[in-house]
């Protein structure tokens, strides 16, 4: 291999000749001129090389993408061979099924996992508007609700009423990896605003690696014929109306094994631990302009389509508040609550601040953990939302334990 000419590179200690000659006026040689066009041109590679190079890259990367998308080992792609069963995509498919069966939900619950224990049969009985569906998704935030509403409107699933639970810190900027789930349902994903869609797409593609490609290829080689997951291997699952059953928690409570206090403390430590890694935790929790704008678009879209919206701030367990929430964080919550109240008032929507358990008559026992209230708790919320006394029972709904004994026909254990 011939060396690149180095006579134009002087040493730090041996350039005596150049120095004594006239160092201040010596021409500084141009290292870039080491290779002339003739030398480069001598390679004679031409346009053909470029096309083969880029063509090979695109082909191989395209094949990798195809294998990952269809094999879907990561579960992050809208595969037709191995469909994802994350809550965003699974629940959207259930609504699509309902529309096909002329049972499009008229009352829809949106929000995060803190809203997942609102029972649609109870809501149907209280709201008296027709079928209800629980469309709350893990770590749901404004981007999800806007995409969901846009999807519903374009797929014949326009509800008459939306109940949306807005978490205190839903407008913050902490990275939300659950949003990658939006990419698992192609039509839902296309309802996400373009900028966010590109970012989610990029983050999904970043999950691809050699291992996922190999595993996806194995799946493609022997694709699953049906969705089949044993209930014994799951700690929670969804039923057809979007309601969540916490199997492990229900069984633990029945056994008398349930340590609520310990769970809350563990969650408080974990939550704070993650937050304190941020350079400015309060800034990260504070409302981000873009997310506020997305929520505004969501409310305006609902209003433009004559949909009634009931906004609420779901509670956190008081013990968690005591252990985890610092003074600055309480101020953020108050600011968000005031902002939601104002936005709702401007659009003649209702807003309920359920941060205090007394505001809807709940107790500190009606909790699974720091964040997730039980069905008894959410029943009271629904009652107060519709102007009923908290303790009223409008309709007896099948308890979770009975559902576990008699699994419904459609769950995310046996249906894609």
């Amino acid at each position: 291999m011939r060396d690149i000419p180095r006579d134009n590179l002087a040493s730090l200690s041996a350039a005596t000749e150049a120095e004594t000659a006239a160092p201040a006026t010596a021409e500084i040689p141009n290292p870039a001129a080491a290779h002339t066009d003739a030398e480069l041109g001598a390679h004679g590679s031409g346009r053909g090389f470029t096309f083969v190079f880029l063509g090979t890259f695109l082909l191989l990367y395209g094949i990798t993408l195809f294998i990952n998308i269809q094999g879907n080992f990561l579960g992050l792609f809208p595969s037709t061979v191995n469909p994802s069963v994350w809550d965003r995509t699974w629940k959207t498919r259930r609504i699509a099924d309902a529309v096909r069966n002329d049972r499009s939900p008229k009352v829809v619950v949106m929000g995060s996992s803190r809203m997942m224990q609102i029972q649609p049969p109870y809501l149907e009985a209280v709201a008296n508007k027709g079928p209800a569906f629980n469309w709350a998704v893990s770590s749901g935030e404004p981007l999800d609700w806007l995409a969901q509403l846009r999807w519903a409107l374009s797929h014949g699933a326009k509800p008459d009423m939306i109940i949306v639970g807005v978490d205190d810190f839903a407008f913050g900027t902490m990275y939300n990896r659950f949003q990658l789930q939006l990419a698992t349902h192609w039509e839902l994903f296309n309802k996400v605003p373009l900028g966010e869609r590109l970012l989610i797409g990029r983050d999904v593609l970043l999950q691809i690696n050699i291992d996922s490609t190999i595993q996806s290829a194995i799946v493609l080689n022997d694709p699953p014929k049906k969705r089949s997951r044993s209930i014994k291997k799951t700690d929670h699952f969804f039923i057809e109306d979007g309601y969540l059953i916490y199997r492990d928690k229900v069984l633990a409570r029945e056994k008398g094994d349930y340590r609520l206090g310990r769970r809350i403390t563990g969650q408080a430590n974990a939550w704070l631990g993650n937050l304190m890694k941020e350079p400015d935790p309060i800034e990260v929790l504070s409302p981000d302009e873009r997310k506020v704008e997305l929520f505004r678009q969501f409310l305006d879209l609902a209003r433009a389509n004559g949909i009634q919206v009931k906004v609420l701030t779901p509670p956190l367990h008081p013990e968690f508040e005591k252990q985890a929430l610092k003074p600055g964080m309480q101020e953020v919550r108050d600011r968000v609550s005031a902002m939601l109240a104002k936005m709702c008032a401007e659009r003649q929507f209702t807003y309920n601040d359920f941060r205090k358990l007394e505001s809807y008559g709940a107790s500190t026992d009606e909790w699974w953990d720091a964040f997730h209230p039980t069905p008894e708790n959410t029943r009271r919320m629904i009652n107060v939302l519709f102007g009923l006394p908290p303790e009223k029972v409008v309709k007896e709904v099948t308890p979770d334990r009975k559902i576990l004994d008699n699994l419904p026909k459609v769950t995310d254990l046996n249906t894609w």
Partner: protein
Amino acid sequence: MLFNSFEFVLLFLPVAFTLFWYGGTSLRWRLGFLTFASYAFYSYWQFENHSFSYFLNSFAIWQPGGLKRFFWDWRFTLIMIASSSVDYFAGNWLPKLSTQTPSGRFRRKLLLAISISANLGLLGFFKYAGFFSAMASDVSQFMGGGPLPIISVTFAAGISFYTFESMSYVIDVYRGLAKPTRSYLDYACFISFFPHLIAGPIIRWSDILHQFRDVGWARRRPDWDHVNLGLVLFTMGLAKKLIIADRLAAEMNPMWQAVKDGQVLTCGGSWAAVMAYTFRIYFDFSGYSDMATGLGHMFAVKLPQNFDSPYKATDPSDFWRRWHITLSTWLRDYLYFPLGGSRGSALFTARNLMITMFLGGLWHGAAWLFIVWGLWHGLLLAGYHILRAKKLWLPNENPAGYWFNRQLTFLLVIIGWVFFRCADASNPALGLPSIKPALTMLGQMFGFGTGGTAAFHPHIKKWFVWALLGCWAWCNFMPNSFQVAYNIRLRQWIAVAGGAVLAACVIHFGTKLDFLYFRF
């Protein structure tokens, strides 16, 4: 924006390439578009989020608070523009001042001083404010006073590089080595040209001017030989970074963290950690330089070589002819020579070398151990200079002497990397205590304080040891990327292999780590 990211490889680069070559053919278009694209490339990292609406809203200065927001969102870009504008105007003003009259010469010197002060002031504030304030606080406490507040400033990416380039322009104009440009566009493009903007190579005005003025640069069509060379270099650099450097980092980082936490490594484990870092920093930084040069070629701009098989160096001086070449030549031309170079006694030369390398170490970051690393190399250079003068350095003509010199130089460089790796510029309050992990690692390398007889750390994987041996063999026997790229005939099978490697690298983007030299 990182070179090893989807948004760069799949969006920015194809769009920039297409618009540059096919958007227009005039020189003004080429320079203007390249400057605009470079500013966009640079600005990307400073936005709070990367949505299109955020980008558009950043220009809405007519809205309440819009002007304040504009300055905040574009703050680092504006700083770069301000810094380069000072030097552009200084460069244009200098030739107008007479060199024949004392007042003219005084004003020329003053203008030069203002330009250099502005650049060093910016660099000092963004890079060293925390360090010096921490030092002041340490001194205050040592003297019996209380601690002083430590300034924390967000580091402006690329500032170490573009301020040096700006200064070199003004100094060269002052010395009569370069003609200043009347075209602000030329100058803005020179400073901001995105391939080299964030982490070098540090280019000179004379490197680039004749290329901008080359009639062929305003050709209608891309120069495909340049483009292909660029693709090959870019891919090789990306592979060096992702497949070698990042894999080494993943294995060695826990070992270094263990030493920082006060744990003991075995002798073998220490060597493995240090060797891994030695190869990591080389493949990472040279990989970046390859990518930068490759990107330059895609736009028919030839950037200078920055690495020339540095671990094949036969003495410390030879090492600095091969490692970060553009920085070492900059230090030589603008620091070492003005100090007097080697035009004096051995002690005088040693002094100049120590000062140059002290500042060279400080340039890398605001941390004591970067200074220690710089002084270590200053000591090596001074020592080599003296030994060579006394004919005590083995001649390279003798094969045994040649190999001995190479491995001795390699060992001396490795020792320096221990200080470099332990430097923590992100924590200026750490101060001199940060030297403890470095000394511990060095001690463990030579068998002190290991507390055990095991030859290797129990968690070192066999493949890792083989990988390190492979890296050593590569650095000692294989040609470097430039030698490969500039000499090989680009046949079709290379196109296929290159495309496959690029695809493998892009798949690896999910496991990316930052480029080391971005922190400088």
